[in-house]
């Protein structure tokens, strides 16, 4: 298997290129839908961007893969990503970073960077990504495409290799809102195998009519760390929405202060448990069975997990430890509850929240070397995951030639409203 940049895949958008099957009928007939490499595909290697899953070929399809195959979608391959979704740039991939189609020296964003690059470069018309703390919206913003993180419980996670179960959702990515909405419609079919899923399929309603819609703009979305040029671009986009008949309401979201910490404690804790199964016994690189099992496990995990994954496993293990649980994991859940309360309070006043998806545009590959500055980039996207509400990123112009994303967040199970506002903006800008 050739990996890294190739003539076929100069952006390293894919980890595995698949053979495209003959055309089949359905609502996605003949449409290429790239699939992020943490979504299980029967018979096609699924690595999650990690060396520890090299050679793992799932014996089953994820529910969403079943659904898109049944609608005639063609899967061109499995897309590059930060290892197990842990990153915001796709630089943490075990198979080399993906490159931004707008500027190959820059990151795609992450962790669904390969999916975004594949769509933005035209290698696939649509893509499936996953979003734990912004992993669909961030690369959508950086690569200039549309991405939706659906309401928690709206898409089956069956077959999605878990990173942080209580936060993540699979979601659609595409060049246009209409394509993104179509893919969302296909993948939202109910699946009893995911106990956290609700039977509330997505019913698209793209009329672009947002007259009378109330859109809140929290001051914190334009706070410290947000590039003024990006802020300016997004404010202009919000005024477009106003021009289309929406009422803009200035508001506050004080829980933003704790959101990032609550997010990182929660996701690393869950990850430390989810990733325990990678021990070299059942799949992936085999552990040395001549050694005592605990030594053999340690060896496999040391050798084949990347540094960011090891760091997050350590943080999460610590956060759940006896004596620290209350101080970290317990407290994070309280903070998470505050975020939920903030949203429900705000959503009594407004129908949507708007702001930038990312505080900056795509940075250069290798530019951010310390993990903390990378974590800070997630500040605007993680609140939606903590609360389980839907949020989309729609392209709203560029800053120095690099795309900027407008983030629209809605009430739980109002993904339709979020997408309709995104559609209104998209059409409004075109007009």
């Amino acid at each position, binding site marked *: 298997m050739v990996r890294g940049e190739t003539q076929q895949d100069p952006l390293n958008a894919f980890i595995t290129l698949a053979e495209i099957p003959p055309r089949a009928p359905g609502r996605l007939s003949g449409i290429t839908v790239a699939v992020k490499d*943490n*979504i*299980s595909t029967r018979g096609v290697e*699924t690595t*999650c961007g990690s060396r520890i*899953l090299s050679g*793992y070929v*799932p*014996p*089953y399809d*994820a529910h969403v893969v079943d659904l898109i195959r049944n609608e005639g979608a063609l899967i061109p391959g499995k897309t590059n990503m930060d290892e197990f979704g842990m990153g915001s740039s796709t630089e943490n991939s075990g198979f080399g970073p993906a490159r931004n189609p707008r500027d190959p020296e820059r990151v795609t964003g992450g962790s669904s960077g390969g999916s975004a690059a594949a769509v933005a470069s035209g290698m696939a018309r649509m893509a499936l990504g996953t979003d734990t703390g912004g992993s669909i919206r961030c690369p959508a913003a950086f690569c200039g495409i549309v991405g939706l993180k659906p309401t928690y419980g709206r898409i089956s*996670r*069956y*077959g*999605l*290799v*878990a990173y942080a*179960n*209580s936060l993540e959702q699979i979601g659609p990515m595409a060049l246009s809102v209409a394509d993104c909405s179509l893919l969302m419609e296909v993948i939202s079919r109910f699946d*009893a*195998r*995911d*106990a*956290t899923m609700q039977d509330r399929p997505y019913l698209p309603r793209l009329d672009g009519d947002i007259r009378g819609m109330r859109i809140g703009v929290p001051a914190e979305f334009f706070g410290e760390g947000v590039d003024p040029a990006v802020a300016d671009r997004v404010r202009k986009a919000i005024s477009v929405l106003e021009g289309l008949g929406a009422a803009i309401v200035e508001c506050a979201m004080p829980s933003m202060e704790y959101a990032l910490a609550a997010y990182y404690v929660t996701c690393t*804790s*869950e990850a*430390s*448990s989810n*990733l*325990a*199964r*990678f*021990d070299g*016994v*059942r*799949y992936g690189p085999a552990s040395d*069975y*001549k050694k005592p*099992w*605990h030594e053999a*496990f340690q060896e496999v995990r040391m050798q084949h997990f990347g540094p960011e994954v090891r760091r997050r496993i350590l943080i999460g*293990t610590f956060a*759940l*430890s*006896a004596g620290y*649980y209350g101080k970290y*994991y317990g407290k994070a859940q309280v903070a998470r509850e505050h975020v939920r309360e903030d949203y429900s309070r705000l959503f009594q006043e407004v129908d949507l929240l708007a702001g930038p998806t990312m505080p900056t545009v795509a940075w250069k590959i290798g530019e951010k070397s310390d993990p903390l500055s990378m974590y800070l980039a997630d500040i605007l996207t993680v609140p939606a995951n903590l609360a389980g509400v839907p949020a989309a990123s729609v392209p709203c112009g560029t800053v120095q030639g690099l795309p900027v994303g407008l983030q629209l967040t809605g009430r739980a199970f109002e993904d339709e409203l979020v997408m309709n506002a995104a559609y209104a903006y998209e059409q409004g800008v075109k007009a």
Partner: protein
Amino acid sequence: MTVPIGMEAGSAVRETAGSGLAAVEGGRETVIIGLEVHCQLNTESKLFCGCSTDYRSDPPNTHVCPTCLGLPGSLPAMNRRAVEYALLVAKALNCRVADEAEFARKNYFYPDLTKGFQITMYNRPLAEGGYLDIEGDGAEKRVRITRIHLEEDPGRLVHMGTPDRPRYSLVDYNRSGIPLIEIVTEPDLRSPKEARRLLNGLRTTLEYLGVFDGDQEGSLRVDANISIRGSERVEVKNISSYRGVEKALTYEITRQRGVLRRGQKVERETRHFVEARGVTTSARSKEQEHDYRYFTEPDLRPLQVRHWVEGIALPELPAARRERFTAQYGISPEHARTLCGELRLAEFFEQMAPCGNPLLAATWVADTLQGELNYREMEIGKVPPARFRELLGMLCRKEVTDKAAVEVLRRMLDQCLKGEEVQSPAQIMEKNMLGKTAGDTFTGIVREVIAECGDAVRDYRAGRGEALNFLVGQVMKRTRGRADPKELTRILREELEPQGT
């Protein structure tokens, strides 16, 4: 009754009323025992997937799927039947069922664990605060149940090589995901015998509920907490049989007393029971430092169990059946206790009771049959009820003596054991000439033959031994082979004695 929950062994335990136990028994310190009992629930499919639980006779790793193998991306789906079974147990053990129970992850590494964690319940179990009445060392005793929860069974390791020279281990995941119920008792038990009785009581109750099959290998596993009052508590893990519990606890009491006698302190530790040698050995201290990092299982929703349990009806339980047996059939409380102590025995008795004499049936099932079964290490399930009923019928009608009936029963059971078709008691009696009239019948035929075969009789009396064989053959012909040739030879000899004719 209200009970304090979560009491530590070794602290002052309030004695159950009427147990009459003092701190010192027979000059020895009080032994304090609490049990954690794990039973496999006999649902058709596993706890979180659709795989069949009927794996014991199948090759390794044939009852598996992405979920019970813990493959990346798999998710647990709740088996509602398992929850119902566990709620039945909670209700039968008089527990308070929680409004909402919640699954949690218990994180630890082990090769038999597919996900690196076990899905269990931690601080929000299904039910708490129940009890089970057992026969105590003194009077009847109430053992308090601390909590009941559901969890998944891990896989099974098969070690290759010898215990001294282990080579490698193979893993069989057929067992992975089998539903387990964990029942934790308060430290209310005072002797290994009481512990054994509690287990028997639990087994009987669970079998009456139809949620457990105690005959299945590995269906029961027990961890015991044991201390001698005033000393540290020791946890003994890895006990997997009813007899093992008594053995492990007896060994451990002797060991701890020995330590104390030598003026040393009993260390708080975890020990493993080695069934083959009947001893407990200290587990490596590392294992005691386990921090399981429990947290709520994010892939499952909390279970609304209080409401659920209200709709669940209990079948008749052992205590109720004992009372009914004494009232309905007029049998003794002792017989009722024996019969109801095992579900299949109680059911077998009820099939026999209509024979007309329930007292006779009770004696024959509870004493005679039980004794013969124990001697043969045989299960009651193997005994054909129809044949046993025929035998009881004959006893009722006095067509067979007690002594002969025991003989018939033994032959019936031997036929069962050999896997032969079990003959009717009448056939067995006739063939073995156990009946009151059978001998006479043959004697009549023998006399006929003697009267008709004068030549052979003369030859025999003249000392020609082979003539007897001819006569035996003639009788055999007329009895169509039902008679035992040896027995016939004896009767013939008697009849041919000069004074007999």
